[in-house]
């Protein structure tokens, strides 16, 4: 006894032409497509193969893009405290603070004071190691509203 109608028609599962079950699997992949790609096996098959290639590449691309975005955000957050993102990460690495970019970005957005204390740690470390002159006074040449 088969509760599923398809199994009644085709006999027992996995019995019969293998193509029928292959088509069913492809139709499950193409459920979100548009036009005849969605219901016609011979047409949709090619687009499914390409879509699977895109999905494979996209898994790598997503990691790369997120990495870039986190770098940009960390750089922006560190520059608020007069430190480049590159130097900031260098100081953290030398302090053996093993926070990744995602966590640092989340701290910069949602816990700015925590991030600021991390920047101070990094600055102190950079100063001790002589990597960058981070405590140097900022250059002059900035004028305020009263002077305009």
């Amino acid at each position: 006894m088969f509760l599923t109608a398809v199994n009644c028609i085709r006999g027992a599962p996995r019995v019969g032409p293998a193509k029928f079950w292959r088509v069913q699997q492809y139709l499950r992949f193409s459920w979100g497509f548009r036009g005849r790609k969605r219901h016609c096996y011979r047409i949709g098959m090619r687009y499914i193969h390409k879509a699977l290639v895109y999905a494979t590449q996209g898994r790598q691309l997503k990691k790369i893009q997120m990495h870039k975005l986190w770098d940009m955000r960390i750089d922006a957050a560190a520059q608020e405290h007069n430190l480049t993102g590159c130097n900031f990460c260098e100081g953290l690495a030398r302090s053996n603070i093993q926070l990744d970019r995602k966590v640092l970005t989340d701290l910069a957005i949602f816990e700015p004071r925590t991030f600021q204390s991390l920047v101070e740690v990094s600055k102190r470390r950079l100063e001790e190691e002589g990597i960058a002159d981070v405590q140097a006074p900022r250059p002059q040449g900035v004028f305020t509203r009263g002077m305009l």
Partner: protein
Amino acid sequence: MAQHRVQQWATFARMWWLYDARWQCPFQSAPVIIRHLQGLHKPIYHPLSDVGDHVVVINTEHIAMEGDLWRNWRHFHHTGYPGGFSATRVWKVHEADPTKVLHKQIYSTVKGNLLRRPIMARLHLYPDDNVPEDILKNITGQIRQLREVPKRLDEYTQDERDAFPRLFEWPADYVPNPGKKTVKS
């Protein structure tokens, strides 16, 4: 705490920055300005979200260019019709509109996507330091100049000039630039 679920303080507020373009290179100033226009200086930056700030640029008629670029750099235009191409020297463009050089440079530096129009709308360019009061009252920050404007000799007082250290005194009959030699007939 449900009422604090979307409490964002002033995270998405737009700041207004001032940039003094006097004696600054437009090619090097543009990336600095668009960094603030796009919001790249904020930790919440995302390329698809419109989180940038306003930038008010003053003294655009006093921008500086390196070498012979005022004569050699050209702005191109094409009307779309055959033979509609034209190239204008940048000094000529600058004479016609003192804000155009910086505007075009920033426009071409911003990536050409759907956000370019709102980004450019947040840029306010003024040829001199006469900024309208309604713009000026919003300004809360300043972008530091890339190059410090040097002082000219006539801006120093006589006391400062006299106090400047000298290695030696010029002879009384020394002529710094004798000029073209005149042939006596």
